[in-house]
Protein backbone atom coordinates (compact mmCIF):
# COMPACT_ATOMS: atom_id res chain seq x y z
CA UNK A 1 0.00 0.00 0.00
CA UNK A 2 1.36 3.40 -0.96
CA UNK A 3 2.48 5.69 1.85
CA UNK A 4 0.85 9.01 2.68
CA UNK A 5 2.21 12.20 4.24
CA UNK A 6 -0.29 14.68 5.70
CA UNK A 7 1.00 18.23 6.12
CA UNK A 8 -0.79 20.53 8.55
CA UNK A 9 -0.15 24.22 7.87
CA UNK A 10 -3.36 25.79 9.22
CA UNK A 11 -4.00 27.19 12.67
CA UNK A 12 -6.84 25.42 14.47
CA UNK A 13 -10.42 26.72 14.76
CA UNK A 14 -10.28 29.43 12.06
CA UNK A 15 -11.30 26.83 9.49
CA UNK A 16 -11.95 23.07 9.41
CA UNK A 17 -8.61 22.07 7.87
CA UNK A 18 -7.33 20.62 11.13
CA UNK A 19 -10.42 18.41 11.50
CA UNK A 20 -10.26 17.20 7.90
CA UNK A 21 -6.59 16.42 8.31
CA UNK A 22 -7.25 14.27 11.35
CA UNK A 23 -10.20 12.57 9.65
CA UNK A 24 -8.14 11.59 6.61
CA UNK A 25 -5.28 10.48 8.83
CA UNK A 26 -7.38 8.23 11.04
CA UNK A 27 -9.38 6.86 8.09
CA UNK A 28 -6.22 5.86 6.22
CA UNK A 29 -4.55 4.54 9.34
CA UNK A 30 -7.53 2.26 9.94
CA UNK A 31 -6.66 0.56 6.63
CA UNK A 32 -3.04 0.15 7.77
CA UNK A 33 -1.72 2.59 5.18
CA UNK A 34 1.76 3.84 6.15
CA UNK A 35 1.06 7.41 7.18
CA UNK A 36 2.91 10.31 8.77
CA UNK A 37 1.81 13.69 10.08
CA UNK A 38 3.82 16.83 9.44
CA UNK A 39 3.21 20.14 11.23
CA UNK A 40 4.56 23.42 9.87
CA UNK A 41 3.68 27.12 9.68
CA UNK A 42 0.61 27.93 11.81
CA UNK A 43 -0.20 24.20 11.93
CA UNK A 44 2.08 23.88 14.94
CA UNK A 45 -0.52 25.78 16.96
CA UNK A 46 -2.77 22.70 16.71
CA UNK A 47 -0.43 20.97 19.14
CA UNK A 48 -0.18 23.57 21.89
CA UNK A 49 -0.75 22.66 25.52
CA UNK A 50 -3.71 24.08 27.42
CA UNK A 51 -6.02 24.73 24.48
CA UNK A 52 -9.77 24.82 25.07
CA UNK A 53 -11.52 24.12 21.78
CA UNK A 54 -14.93 24.13 23.47
CA UNK A 55 -14.74 27.95 23.54
CA UNK A 56 -14.90 27.88 19.76
CA UNK A 57 -17.62 25.24 19.66
CA UNK A 58 -15.24 22.44 18.72
CA UNK A 59 -14.09 19.20 20.35
CA UNK A 60 -10.96 19.32 22.44
CA UNK A 61 -7.95 18.67 20.22
CA UNK A 62 -5.88 16.79 22.78
CA UNK A 63 -8.51 14.03 22.93
CA UNK A 64 -8.45 13.61 19.15
CA UNK A 65 -4.67 13.58 18.98
CA UNK A 66 -4.78 10.93 21.70
CA UNK A 67 -6.36 8.61 19.10
CA UNK A 68 -3.24 8.68 16.93
CA UNK A 69 -1.42 6.22 19.14
CA UNK A 70 -4.41 3.86 19.09
CA UNK A 71 -4.31 3.93 15.28
CA UNK A 72 -0.53 3.36 15.29
CA UNK A 73 0.20 6.75 13.77
CA UNK A 74 3.64 7.20 15.25
CA UNK A 75 5.53 9.09 12.56
CA UNK A 76 5.02 12.74 13.52
CA UNK A 77 7.29 15.55 12.45
CA UNK A 78 7.54 19.23 13.33
CA UNK A 79 9.15 22.00 11.32
CA UNK A 80 11.90 23.47 13.47
CA UNK A 81 11.92 26.87 11.80
CA UNK A 82 8.12 27.19 12.12
CA UNK A 83 8.34 26.53 15.86
CA UNK A 84 11.21 28.98 16.27
CA UNK A 85 9.46 31.73 14.29
CA UNK A 86 6.50 31.45 16.65
CA UNK A 87 8.52 31.37 19.85
CA UNK A 88 7.62 27.73 20.49
CA UNK A 89 9.64 24.64 21.34
CA UNK A 90 8.92 20.90 21.43
CA UNK A 91 8.12 21.08 25.15
CA UNK A 92 5.09 23.27 24.33
CA UNK A 93 3.49 20.50 22.25
CA UNK A 94 1.03 17.83 23.38
CA UNK A 95 2.35 14.97 21.25
CA UNK A 96 5.80 13.54 20.74
CA UNK A 97 7.49 13.78 17.40
CA UNK A 98 10.69 14.58 15.62
CA UNK A 99 11.81 18.14 14.95
CA UNK A 100 13.22 18.56 11.44
CA UNK A 101 15.29 21.30 9.83
CA UNK A 102 14.39 22.53 6.34
CA UNK A 103 16.54 20.05 4.39
CA UNK A 104 15.50 17.17 6.66
CA UNK A 105 11.86 18.18 6.22
CA UNK A 106 11.89 17.86 2.45
CA UNK A 107 14.08 14.76 2.51
CA UNK A 108 11.55 13.06 4.78
CA UNK A 109 8.61 14.15 2.62
CA UNK A 110 10.33 12.71 -0.44
CA UNK A 111 10.04 9.25 1.12
CA UNK A 112 6.24 9.25 0.70
CA UNK A 113 4.24 8.23 -2.36
CA UNK A 114 1.46 10.76 -1.75
CA UNK A 115 1.43 14.12 0.02
CA UNK A 116 -1.67 16.08 1.00
CA UNK A 117 -1.63 19.52 2.59
CA UNK A 118 -4.22 21.11 4.85
Amino acid at each position, binding site marked *: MKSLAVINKSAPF*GNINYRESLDITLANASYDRPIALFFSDDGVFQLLN*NTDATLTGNKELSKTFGLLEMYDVEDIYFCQSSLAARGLCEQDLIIDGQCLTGPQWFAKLAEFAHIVTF
Partner: protein
Amino acid sequence: MMLIIATKSPFINALPLTTTNASLVLTQDSVIGVTTAIDSQHFINVFALESDLIARGLLLTAQNNADITIIDLAQFVQLTVSSHPIMNW
Protein backbone atom coordinates in the same frame (compact mmCIF):
# COMPACT_ATOMS: atom_id res chain seq x y z
CA MET B 1 -10.26 56.66 17.75
CA MET B 2 -10.05 54.11 14.96
CA LEU B 3 -10.41 50.46 16.00
CA ILE B 4 -8.78 47.81 13.85
CA ILE B 5 -10.11 44.29 14.41
CA ALA B 6 -7.70 41.61 13.21
CA THR B 7 -8.98 38.08 12.61
CA LYS B 8 -6.30 36.25 10.62
CA SER B 9 -2.94 34.87 11.65
CA PRO B 10 -0.21 37.52 11.29
CA PHE B 11 1.85 34.85 9.55
CA ILE B 12 -0.83 34.72 6.83
CA ASN B 13 -1.95 38.34 6.84
CA ALA B 14 0.60 40.77 8.32
CA LEU B 15 -0.70 43.06 11.03
CA PRO B 16 -1.27 46.68 9.95
CA LEU B 17 1.22 49.40 10.80
CA THR B 18 -0.54 52.70 11.26
CA THR B 19 0.48 56.20 12.21
CA THR B 20 -3.10 57.28 12.81
CA ASN B 21 -4.86 57.38 16.15
CA ALA B 22 -5.81 53.70 16.26
CA SER B 23 -6.09 50.72 18.55
CA LEU B 24 -5.73 47.11 17.48
CA VAL B 25 -7.81 44.16 18.70
CA LEU B 26 -6.55 40.64 18.10
CA THR B 27 -9.40 38.14 17.69
CA GLN B 28 -9.77 34.60 16.28
CA ASP B 29 -6.53 33.38 14.62
CA SER B 30 -4.90 36.81 14.90
CA VAL B 31 -4.27 36.16 18.62
CA ILE B 32 -1.36 34.08 17.35
CA GLY B 33 0.29 37.51 17.10
CA VAL B 34 0.97 37.45 20.84
CA THR B 35 3.77 34.96 20.15
CA THR B 36 5.56 37.55 18.02
CA ALA B 37 6.98 40.99 18.69
CA ILE B 38 4.09 43.31 17.84
CA ASP B 39 5.18 46.80 16.87
CA SER B 40 2.99 48.36 19.54
CA GLN B 41 4.35 51.87 19.00
CA HIS B 42 2.06 52.10 15.98
CA PHE B 43 -1.04 51.78 18.15
CA ILE B 44 -2.59 53.51 21.13
CA ASN B 45 -3.37 50.07 22.55
CA VAL B 46 -3.07 46.47 21.44
CA PHE B 47 -5.85 44.29 22.84
CA ALA B 48 -6.33 40.51 22.62
CA LEU B 49 -9.60 38.69 23.20
CA GLU B 50 -9.34 36.42 26.23
CA SER B 51 -11.62 33.60 25.00
CA ASP B 52 -9.68 33.27 21.74
CA LEU B 53 -6.40 33.19 23.67
CA ILE B 54 -7.67 30.47 26.00
CA ALA B 55 -9.05 28.40 23.11
CA ARG B 56 -5.63 28.42 21.45
CA GLY B 57 -3.57 27.86 24.58
CA LEU B 58 -1.98 31.30 24.36
CA LEU B 59 -3.31 33.05 27.47
CA LEU B 60 -0.06 32.69 29.44
CA THR B 61 1.98 33.94 26.50
CA ALA B 62 -0.24 37.01 26.23
CA GLN B 63 -0.06 37.64 29.98
CA ASN B 64 3.73 37.71 29.69
CA ASN B 65 3.64 40.21 26.82
CA ALA B 66 3.70 43.72 28.29
CA ASP B 67 2.44 45.23 25.03
CA ILE B 68 -0.84 43.29 25.14
CA THR B 69 -3.96 44.15 27.10
CA ILE B 70 -6.26 41.16 27.53
CA ILE B 71 -9.98 41.92 27.27
CA ASP B 72 -13.13 39.86 27.65
CA LEU B 73 -16.14 39.87 25.34
CA ALA B 74 -17.96 42.60 27.27
CA GLN B 75 -14.93 44.90 27.04
CA PHE B 76 -14.64 44.08 23.34
CA VAL B 77 -18.23 45.14 22.79
CA GLN B 78 -17.61 48.33 24.78
CA LEU B 79 -14.60 49.10 22.58
CA THR B 80 -16.66 48.72 19.42
CA VAL B 81 -19.32 51.02 20.85
CA SER B 82 -16.86 53.75 21.84
CA SER B 83 -14.62 53.60 18.74
CA HIS B 84 -15.12 55.13 15.32
CA PRO B 85 -14.43 54.15 12.65
CA ILE B 86 -14.01 50.38 12.93
CA MET B 87 -12.04 48.43 10.36
CA ASN B 88 -11.75 44.68 9.92
CA TRP B 89 -8.28 43.42 9.03
